[in-house]
């Protein structure tokens, strides 16, 4: 009988499939979803693979229900995930806020597609960058990772679960149609070689001496149902006992604690890759699939004698402000290509100490390298 775990070694695999295998290795055993292009392969493969490892994969009636079910599953002790794209991501916003205030470690994968509303379901876009950060009301923080290859999609899915568990907060993997549907080489490690963070669980005996929500600590352990904690978990602003309050003082404490979990750990969360930046005078700042055409563009620029480099941002939120600030002090210009009409360029501009040129490309296809190259040439001139 097979363990059901993915076979270690080199595979040729679709990004959406790699995401599921990574989730299994990260310990995820609960998937609730609603089909949507171009993410459905994640859901479909979860329905095949999760039961093989004793996990649950179910179809809900919509994406609001999916995220609600994840939070319930998380409080029942499971690692839980869903996958979606644009319209579904919009429907998830309310309960992403719920996961944030309830401190539920869940993972949401968004395989971005093109355009607003129903847009172009089958084609690529990067229009959900701001929504992933600001889409849910009332001042929240999210952790958002953006893969540019199948291997990164695999690695970042594991990372997302580990971050969610460590900080007890929702984490978003912001992929895109190209990374999701592309087949590529991926190396799957053995289960023993995968670093898996396990959740800190509330010991009910401690609750006689400490409140369930101690806002002076870094991250509180999580009370799990059925263990005798009998704690109230509330969507309303709540005090250290978990009871609703309208006190501004407690509201301030609670929010600083919740936001602080991410803000105080920002530096550990930042992931990025640099290519040829050592002597670069112009650096392209890109993420997701756009990093691939950007790499090609800077190589072409080098061939033309321009000292160009690439900063690939993997963590989009919390925004790696220092990384931009540091880099921008030793280059002449930054070029920010995106498959949208200007999103991540805004925080780049906020922190950059040099001119920032945005390259915007209508959702629907990958940005062609020559378009980025043109901007690099203008920046270098």
């Amino acid at each position, binding site marked *: *009988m*097979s*363990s*059901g*775990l*993915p*076979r270690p070694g080199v*595979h040729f*695999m679709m990004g959406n*499939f790699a995401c599921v*295998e990574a989730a299994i290795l990260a310990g995820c055993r*609960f998937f*609730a979803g609603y089909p949507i292009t171009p993410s459905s392969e994640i859901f479909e493969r979860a329905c*095949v*693979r999760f*039961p*093989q*490892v*004793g*996990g*649950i994969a*179910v179809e*809900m*009636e*919509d994406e*609001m*229900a*999916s995220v*609600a*079910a*994840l*939070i*319930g*599953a998380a*409080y*029942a*002790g*499971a690692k*839980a995930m869903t996958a979606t794209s644009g319209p579904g991501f919009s429907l998830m916003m*309310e*309960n992403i806020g*719920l996961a944030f205030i*309830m401190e539920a470690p869940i993972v949401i994968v968004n395989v971005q597609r093109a355009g607003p509303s129903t847009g172009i379901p089958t084609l690529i876009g990067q229009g959900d960058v701001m929504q992933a950060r600001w889409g849910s009301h009332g001042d929240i923080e999210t952790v958002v990772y953006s893969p540019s290859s199948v291997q990164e999609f695999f690695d970042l899915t594991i990372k997302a679960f580990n971050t969610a568990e460590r900080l007890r907060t929702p984490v978003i993997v912001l992929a895109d149609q190209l990374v999701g549907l592309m087949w590529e080489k991926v190396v*799957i490690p053995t289960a023993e070689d995968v670093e898996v963070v396990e959740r800190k669980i509330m010991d009910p005996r401690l609750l006689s001496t400490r409140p369930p929500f101690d806002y002076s600590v870094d991250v509180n352990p999580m*009370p799990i*149902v*059925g*263990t*005798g*904690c*009998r*704690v*109230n*978990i*509330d*969507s*309303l602003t709540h005090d250290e006992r978990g*009871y*609703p309050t309208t006190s501004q003082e407690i509201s301030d404490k609670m929010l600083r604690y919740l936001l602080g979990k991410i803000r105080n750990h920002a530096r550990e969360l930042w992931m990025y890759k640099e290519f040829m930046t050592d002597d670069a005078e112009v650096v392209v700042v890109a993420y997701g699939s756009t990093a691939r055409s950007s790499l090609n563009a800077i190589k072409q620029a080098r061939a033309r004698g321009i000292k160009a480099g690439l900063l690939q941002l993997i963590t989009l939120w919390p925004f790696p402000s220092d990384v931009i600030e540091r880099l921008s002090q030793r280059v002449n210009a930054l070029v920010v290509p995106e498959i949208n009409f200007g999103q991540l360029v805004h925080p780049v501009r906020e922190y950059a100490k040099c001119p920032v040129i945005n390259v915007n490309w209508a959702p629907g296809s990958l940005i062609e390298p020559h378009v980025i190259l043109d901007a690099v040439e203008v920046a270098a001139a």
Partner: protein
Amino acid sequence: MTQVVKAQRHPRDSLLRSERLPHIWCPGCGIGIVMAAYADAIEASGIPPEKHVCISGIGCTGRVSGYMRLDSFHTTHGRAIAFATGLSLVRPDLEVTVISGDGDICTIGGNHLIHAARRNVDINVIMVNNFNYGMTGGQHGGTTPLGAKTYTSPYGNFEAPFNMPYLVAAAGASFVARWTTLHVRQLINAIKRMMSVEGFAFIEVISPCPPTFGEFNNFPEAIDMMEYFRKYSVVDHNADLSKIDIRLQGEPLVVGNFVDRRRPSYQELVQETIRKASGRGESV
């Protein structure tokens, strides 16, 4: 001489977060009766409190979970049933009860309700029907009777309401009942019964809301609505569910335990799928 009398503890105190009293509900509100009935049913169920989970959405009724000394969750408006589905799939051994209002369960959350009933998710849902959105000050919703006056139906409600037991039974629930806050004993028994049903169990509890519904619909005091319940309620467990809609016009208010049937629960079927699949992971 003054005598210090030690207040007696209520027998259900251990199930309530009594340190949170006084609660937020208005004088004459029926929600407290439902909460007390739930506590009595927990006691009578023989299932230890740490194995009960109480989940609510948003609204006056949504506050019940936070007053219960259980593993409790006060979620988002309409989403309690979806939340409960995820939770109970992972821990099918726990007794999961959703308590929330008519707006929450029937209107904004109506899609989750019918799908949970269709799937026969083994959870209990207690919907307190006060015919309006109490928390937000009295607007009409999916259960407001025709002609009723609310702040968003100032000339009389022109939308036909749902007949809830008919709807939920048609959707496939294993257990369906309707009682009023006057039928406390029957309500406790029905809640206790739903805790042993393996499948989706639903109770509609008709309840007074004097300030935001009663006031404008000839039930200004709680007693007026209770009097109506006394006068017009008819217990009929075998009622034709298609004929039990509520108009509040002096027609029979049919109550009872209407449906109690057995078919495989969602949790059982999900577990069966895992059994079918496990070991088949030759895979990738």
